[in-house]
């Protein structure tokens, strides 16, 4: 009973079965492969929804490594990453956290939006990101050495305005940094068409909408429409909705709550559809 429950809690490590669709826009695949080979950690920078997570999934598949993804949030402590003691029967049982599990298995550990996590988590990842490549587990007095296959990948969105959400130099200078952005228009249209099955012309129009909204960044919108939102809109269109209705729901409403700004985004959508 306890065993079962613990196993359910333990981080599942599996390699991806099918190849995830990822459209490369530059040298990122080669860079990532080289970093993996040379055991260097990687930092992915870029706005939300531009394909960072998909890229990591794709690379994990390509390198044949299991992938452990942790979505960071402001309550995420180092124990959530490293592991903790749980009660089992008469004794306490140690349960590896996702990071420890990934290190032991030589997996790729992806900390999504790493700046969201509490500050103490960075202390844990520092020794993993330099030549030591170890994970100290204080509570167990254990030092886990990372096998060559282990790789740490973190992402963050430099577009955040808040000074609290900045990555410290002492952390960022440990990583190979890959810049992500929305792909060029033709590629982005291909991606949307490929992901959703809508035809190329419609996909190109969705990309046009996205470009128009991206021009509004800082003028009422914090961010323009991401590729992910275009894919959402494409799915709605593929499900039979009119393009304008689909775009208003998937793009216009998703971008913000201010009615005036929404009206402007709707104006832009209706300029295209």
């Amino acid at each position, binding site marked *: 009973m306890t065993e079962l429950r613990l196993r359910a809690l333990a981080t599942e490590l599996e390699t991806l079965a099918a190849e995830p669709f990822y459209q490369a826009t530059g040298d990122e695949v080669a860079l990532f492969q080289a970093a993996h080979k040379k055991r260097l950690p990687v930092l992915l920078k870029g706005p939300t929804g531009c394909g960072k997570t998909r890229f990591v999934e794709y690379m994990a598949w390509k390198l044949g490594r299991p992938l452990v993804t942790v979505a960071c949030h402001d309550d995420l402590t180092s124990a959530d990453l490293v592991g903790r003691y749980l*009660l089992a029967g008469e004794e306490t049982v140690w349960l590896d956290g996702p990071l420890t599990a990934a290190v032991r298995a030589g997996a790729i550990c992806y900390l999504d939006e790493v700046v969201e996590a509490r500050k103490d988590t960075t202390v844990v990842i520092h020794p993993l990101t330099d030549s030591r490549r170890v994970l100290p587990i204080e509570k167990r007095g254990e030092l886990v050495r990372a096998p060559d296959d282990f790789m740490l990948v973190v992402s963050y969105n430099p577009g955040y305005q808040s000074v609290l959400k900045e990555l410290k130099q002492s952390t960022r200078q440990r990583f190979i940094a890959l810049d992500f952005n929305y792909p060029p228009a033709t590629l982005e249209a291909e991606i949307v068409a490929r992901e959703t099955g809508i035809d190329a012309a419609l996909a190109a129009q969705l990309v046009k909408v996205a470009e128009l909204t991206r021009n509004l960044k800082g*003028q009422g919108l914090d961010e323009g429409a991401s590729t992910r939102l275009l894919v959402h809109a494409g799915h709605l269109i593929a499900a039979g909705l009119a393009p304008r209705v689909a775009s208003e729901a998937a793009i216009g409403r998703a971008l913000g709550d201010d009615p005036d700004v929404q009206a402007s985004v709707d104006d832009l959508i209706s300029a295209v559809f």
Partner: protein
Amino acid sequence: MTSFPRSSDSEEQSRLTSDELRQRLDQIFYFDVSSGRNYDDLIDVLALLPRPKQDFALHWASVAAQTHLEIGYLVILLTPQALRHLSFKQAEQWVIAALDAYDGSGVRSAVERLRNIEGFTQGAAGQAMSLESIEGRLARFLQGLSGRPLRLAPAREGVAWTDTETVFLPPSQDAGSASAALERYKALAALHWAQGRYGTFQADFDVALATYPERNQALGWLGVLEALRLTACVGRELPGLRVSMEDLVAALPPQLDAARADLARPDATVQDSLDWLPRLIHSPLPPLPWRGELRPEVVARVRAGRINEQTQILRRAIAGLMAALGKQGGDVETALEIAIDAAGLSAELTIDGQVVALPPEGKAAAQSLIQDLAEIPPEAMTPAGPGAWKPVDKAGSGVTATMEIKADALVDEWDFRRGAYRRQWCHVYLHTVPEGDAAYVPEVRRRHGPLIRQVRRRFEALRGEDRMLRRQADGPEVDLDALVEAIADRRGGAEPSPRLFARRQRDERSLAALFLVDMSGSTKGWINEAEREALVMLCEALEMLDDRYAIWGFSGWTRTRCDLYRIKDFDAPYDATVQQRIAAIEAKDYTRMGPPIRHLTQELLKEPAKHRLLVSLSDGRPDDFGDEYRGQYGIEDTRQALLEARQAGVRSFCVTIDRHGADYLRHMYGPAAYTVLDDVRKLPLKIADIYRKLTS
């Protein structure tokens, strides 16, 4: 909104007589007797009106006269006509719109607004739409289309045009219904954006139009032809706009059909429009559903400046890239190439055969240059030396192009009589207090030694204390109580809680406080002395905490000079510089409170703290040079500014020294909390305590 009595009792009886009217008009225009005007015209007009309309006219004339006498006169003269078409509520808006026009562009446009009752009637009836009502929405629409900053402003004479940085559109639009008017506005905005986007001004107008004796006629026709070409261009790129774009040119006579078809070709350029010109130049200009103009002289001026600026930005971007690649700027060996993509919207840079991504500002500059020139000029491809040119930040992006901007910030002001804001009315200037007597602070410290020690002890208690969090899922220590309980639970067959640990946590206060100190002339002497001592006490106490705090002084002389004096920034330590600035705080001019509150609220909002606090120290009611701000106006504006701060998430607290304890305080400081000190000498003793209570 101020209302006026709308009596329904016997109007004939209560109607004001000529003598009464003269008396009332004397009160409104009393300071204008020297102009030689007499009120006979006005009395004739007013005498015929029923009492509610008389009251309306007199009330709003008095409001308007405080802005400009001429507008006051006109309000009375035109009220009978206005009230034939408008309800009282609408007529209020009619006056307010005129006063806004005065604030924005002077008495002439206010008079125009007032006289255009017909136009306002249509607006009120919902047929016409004012540009003002959709300005923000339309500006974002343009920004979305354009990618480079493209401002929106009302056109003075209702003639739409663009200088390629600002699109000027008619102040109101009548198209039968509100939605049709909005569509028309969007189409006009898109058309003028397209003039820049599809190269209308890439033609050399001086050469192209030199052969036509009637330059205006030629420009008029070129405008029509370009409208034909550009509506087709926009329709292709933005299919959703096609219908409303075609509406713009649908009514053109059949003689233009050949030109229409020719110019709708995807590869048509401004040259094709110019080629059509000789065939049409002698015909009268066909009517269009809007009035528009091409102003190539203005465009050329604006464009030249922008091309120069963007060229420099691109050069710097390229220089930066070359440096990153380890290449020298003057290196003849380096091959630089730039290719423009098929849509003509972005450029790809190649350095020695290697494709390089331009940084965002370089990309935007390249895009802007392509829109202006259809190519990247060769001089933009010579990398700039470091620091050759620095772009100047343009302030006040929301300001119309006609307004001169020198101030550090422009802030709105609340006019209670109108029940509306005067937009960007006050000019805020930022200064830094010079450093004064270095011996001042140590002297105050010595004088108040025991008190400071006492205050510091009290503040120490405020510090975020370590706290033991029990029953945590995780922690460095075992929570024995929880463990015992869990074991007992388990023995008893119950599910034990897994939360068996304890951890220490330090509470963060996360507080940012901004102190605003009155430096008006009335603080001279004792009050200034007390303010300075109070600041010393406060700083000494605050140093015990981790709270971030800033100190600003304020003074002013009319709306065009609202001065803010920096004493301590949030980031600055409480060091000798700050101490010497405190010593140098001196009494200056007047107390216009709204602008400093509004501006510093924005400063506070930039602080990442969870709690934001604005504390003002002043010596009484707001006041400024001239009659306007004194009295009710200033009180209402200050109240409104405090309300805005509260809505934005800034808590405010006002400390005031007003021995008379006047009754306006409760109203003015209503949105904030406040305290009145009857004796200024108590201020240094009280201030730290006030802060402690506010924040614990």
